[in-house]
């Protein structure tokens, strides 16, 4: 599926959805994988929610670092822009100023590309085509970012239309199509995209996912016991699923899958075999440590209360 249209003044955009086309332009390191942090996605959605009345889509700059074949996008900020028909205006000064402010806080991030949300397409016939991922103006914006960014910029599109009943994310890189030295168009290749987060981000996102159902959101006052119970229940269901699978295979009702069997075997083997005496010793040691620390903290707290009472009377 390719759309080609001429735009006013510069190269049009071509969208090819296959990932089998290899880039013949060998000067920059070939980017084959893009990693996005959840904060970037949340920021894009927030910008989209706050967009001006009548704006079809929003754009912004992606910050991150490039590591050979992988580009990791760790931060982003919004850039005001206006597009009408085939013309597009981007806040260049805004971009530079924001970049400077951001770099003050974190010197290790550089511009790696730009993001945009899906563009509503008035000329489309069917409902499925109502939102375009790449518009003709995209190549203009892409050129601007190519001048700002060191290497080829990455283009991230977040589909906020929810037409497909999910929020889709696509990452593209562009290569120019030249015939006899004359640049005709830009091809946007889709690249593999993965959402990864650091340890603490993971914990926060997990908390948010759990709280996504309730209207109040996730609260921080969850009891330690509650959380432990949840973990144990989950572990139990997983073990039960495995056990049911193994029973099924043994009785012949499920066709055995070697890989699954090997995985189960490995995970069962990873449980360390500890002799009872060794375990008892470990258990008692840990228990004693915990008890001692509890005792110490209780004494300290009592001492503090006494000190406060004394201090209070001194004051009067």
């Amino acid at each position: 599926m390719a759309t080609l249209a001429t735009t006013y003044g510069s190269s049009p955009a071509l969208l090819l959805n296959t990932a089998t086309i290899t880039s013949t332009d060998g000067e920059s390191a070939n980017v084959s994988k893009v990693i996005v942090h959840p904060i970037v996605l949340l920021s894009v959605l927030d910008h989209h929610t706050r967009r001006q009345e009548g704006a079809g889509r929003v754009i912004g700059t992606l910050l991150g670092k490039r590591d050979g074949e992988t580009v990791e996008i760790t931060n982003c900020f919004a850039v005001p822009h206006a597009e009408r028909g085939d013309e597009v205006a981007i806040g260049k000064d805004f971009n530079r100023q924001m970049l400077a402010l951001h770099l003050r806080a974190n010197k290790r991030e550089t511009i790696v590309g730009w993001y945009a949300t899906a563009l509503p397409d008035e000329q489309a016939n069917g409902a499925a085509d109502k939102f375009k991922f790449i518009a003709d103006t995209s190549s203009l914006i892409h050129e601007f970012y190519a001048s700002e960014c060191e290497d080829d910029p990455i283009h991230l599109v977040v589909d906020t239309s929810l037409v497909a009943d999910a929020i889709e994310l696509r990452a593209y890189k562009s290569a120019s199509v030249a015939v006899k030295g004359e640049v005709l168009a830009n091809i946007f290749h889709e690249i593999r995209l993965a959402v990864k987060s650091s340890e603490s981000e993971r914990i926060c996102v997990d908390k948010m996912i759990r709280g996504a159902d309730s209207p109040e959101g996730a609260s921080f006052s969850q009891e330690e016991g509650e959380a432990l119970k949840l973990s144990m229940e989950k572990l139990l269901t997983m073990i039960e699923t495995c056990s049911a699978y193994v029973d099924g295979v043994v009785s012949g009702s499920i066709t055995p899958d070697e890989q699954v069997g090997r995985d189960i075997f490995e995970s069962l083997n990873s449980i360390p075999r500890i002799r009872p005496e060794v375990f008892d010793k470990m258990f008692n040691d840990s228990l004693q440590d915990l008890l001692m620390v509890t005792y110490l903290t209780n004494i300290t707290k009592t001492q503090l209360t006494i000190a406060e009472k004394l201090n209070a009377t001194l004051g009067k």
Partner: protein
Amino acid sequence: MAAVMEAGGPVTSVKLEGLAALKIIKHCQESLPTMVTGSLLGLMIEDGVLEITHAFPFPEPLDDKGDIVKTAEETANVDDEAAALDGHEFQLEMMKMLREVNVDNNCVGWYQSMYLGSYSTSSLLENQLSYQTDLSPNAVVILYDPMQTAHGNLVLKCYRLTDEVVQLKLTGKNNFINPRKIFQEVPVTLSNPGLVRSLLRDMGDGLHGSCGAELTGADTTFDRLDLSTNPYLEKHLEFLCSWVDDLAAEQYKFQHYTRNLRSSAGGDTRKGRKAKDEMAQAIEEGWARADAPKRMESLLMSNQIRTYCDQVEKFTGGGFGKLFLTSGLHKDDDKKAS
């Protein structure tokens, strides 16, 4: 700092948006081992709920304003004037720019990373006091603990100063105040707008999984089952020891001062009742003098020690549970095996 429009009523709970939380976490985590601060933007809605929608970090202070190290990449694209801003001006500039993209332009507080729960320091008190007096009595401080956020726990707390302590500080007296009444914890909930929630559901289902063989999804249920307790306890005990030492030193200062006062006010108690009253008054004046040791220090310290103790108690409670569970499972296995 921009003035905040009051919506009436003191703040009783805080709704933190996922985006702001992630920004805070990212900034604090990246800047380890230094502790960092930043600003919070949001809105005060009715019923005493403060909504925080955005956060941005404060820059590292420039050593010398005219001495900005420029690298080759930076000179091309970076606005030098913006790069030279510091502190307050940075904040104003950032807020101005965010206004252009329709972000809430209200500064409602600040955030800081804390080390293993150490928040009760005089610098935090002073800072929060200036926010609460200059900006709005509803300004809050969000404290994120990068050390304790592990094993599936997210330690993000929100505090503000109680009215009592604000009064005390403003009048400059050296009175006693119950350490537990200095900081007031405000409950925090993490909320997200609709689009983000649908994205989260997709992520929870593993839709945007990795393209390799790494662990997908954001499930931290099993991190909690980790049994190692020692490092956490050791760190806490270390901190407790040093803070208790500091507290003891402060108390000694008080004793010393009281002794001095007593000896200078009235060494001769044989003069009878009148002299005793005079002495009592002199002692009171002595405490009100500017060079009297500040009570607030020791009160803050005892508050901090109490916080450490509470943290350890919470941890050992969970630790006991896990330990007994494991031993129960193990004993069962043993019985089955034998």
